């Protein structure tokens, strides 16, 4: 099967520091991939370049056979690691914004998900709690029928109950012919749902493997393997 997401020799330097140093990998449709690595390993930089928010120093990212640009933004649903919705907007405004710009956005699905969270259309985003804002942003991201989902730390900074909600939202809303890549440190929570993992270290791909293969080979969970590999 052709890859939906390809990264070739990707390098990003900030002055003398290399955040990414010749990253290469490919992801095929239908896969739920965990991008794992310690702080500073380049996960967020990789996500930002793939979402078209950062220019690489060298190398390329190909999504759906096209280099990152306006087209790839139309087929990629990106969840940043921070709150990016305009806080002066109401929930309805945010839904309309997604509906106006993304042709693959399902407004009915988004409204149903927001109703589940007890978010009213006229609720202002800045009056919501941080956790609710993050969940709302996730709902909007997952309400798209995108070809590729890039979720940067979707489980970061939320309580265990919210993590369960986020995981179930991700699992129930991404289409089978799409690929989904999420970065996280909380491997124990997501291990059971992942098909593949990409391990990053010092801006390089340490390993890309299927989760089942890794478990068979090492005889331990991905979480345990992660702790062993990245032991300080």
């Amino acid at each position: 099967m052709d890859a939906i997401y390809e990264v070739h020799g990707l390098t990003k330097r900030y002055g003398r520091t290399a955040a990414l140093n010749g990253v290469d990998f490919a992801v095929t449709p239908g896969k739920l991939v965990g991008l794992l690595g310690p702080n500073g390993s380049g996960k967020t930089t990789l996500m930002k370049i793939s979402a078209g928010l950062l220019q690489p120093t060298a190398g390329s990212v190909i999504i759906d056979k096209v280099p990152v640009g306006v087209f790839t933004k139309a087929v990629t649903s990106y969840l940043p690691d921070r709150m990016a919705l305009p806080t002066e907007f109401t929930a309805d405004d945010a839904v309309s914004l997604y509906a106006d710009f993304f042709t693959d956005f399902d407004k009915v699905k988004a409204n149903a998900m927001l109703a589940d969270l007890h978010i009213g259309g006229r609720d202002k985003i800045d009056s919501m709690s941080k956790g609710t804002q993050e969940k709302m942003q996730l709902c909007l991201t997952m309400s798209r029928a995108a070809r590729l989902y890039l979720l940067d730390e979707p489980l970061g900074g939320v309580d265990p109950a919210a993590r369960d909600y986020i995981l179930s939202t991700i699992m129930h809303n991404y289409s089978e012919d799409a690929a989904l890549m999420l970065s996280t440190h909380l491997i124990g929570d997501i291990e059971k749902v992942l098909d593949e993992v990409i391990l990053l270290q010092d801006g390089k791909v340490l390993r890309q493997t299927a989760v089942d293969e890794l478990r068979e080979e090492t005889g331990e969970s991905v979480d345990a393997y992660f702790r062993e590999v990245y032991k300080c």
Partner: protein
Amino acid sequence: MLTNLLHYEFKSTGRVVLPIAAGVLVLNIFTNILSHFVQNTSDRLPLAGVAMALLALASAVSLLVVLAICFFIEIQQFYRLLGERGYLMLALPVPIWQHIAAKVICGTVWTLFGMVFFTLCGMLTTDTVSGSGFALDFSRVTAEDVAIWSAMLLIILALIAGALLHAYLACAFAAQFTQQRLLISIAAYFVIGFIGQMAALVTAVFVAFRGYKYLNNTNFSAASFFGPDNTLGVIVLTLLAVFALIAIVDALLWALTQWLMTKRLNLA
């Protein structure tokens, strides 16, 4: 997509500008009404005169505040676009030029709104608003006036857009750095301004010295271009030449901003 961007840009900024403008309008109307009652009462109520003067001062300052907000709000929006807000807006399937266009159009419209609002409120406060006066003034407007004022309006629009693009370029330059972006934006604004002034000075000196011998023998009188009675043509043509010059500078600022945002985008 540009229409959609403009829709959200006006929605986002209108929520800030319009309530403030409405409050200032109410303050100015209140000041105007109150001033009619307080007039000629300085003998009986000396403190009322002082209070009235302070209120008039507050009204004038509030008008300046509205004008400043109308200009700076889009600069703030652009600065935020290259920060946290960019994580959503720059991930939209929209070319960078449309983001810049939306900010320039919205900023120009708000600044123009601020100028009109300032003028009308100022006239209201100083009691120079008169329906019959306006009607009389408009009845005297000729086709020549319309031509000249249209050219002047174009120049004003280009100047406002240029001022905004100057600030946007400073923000886009500062966005190349990971820290102290606000400080770098302000410093870059003044440096770009200085470079622009120096470039204009050098160009003017170059043209004066190199072009003098050619231009010296050329007849630039109105009659040589349009015949003896066509001074209007000269005025309009001069204004359009000024507009073209400003538009070239605007285009240069736009191109540099777009290059930085396309080739060197680096969200914090």
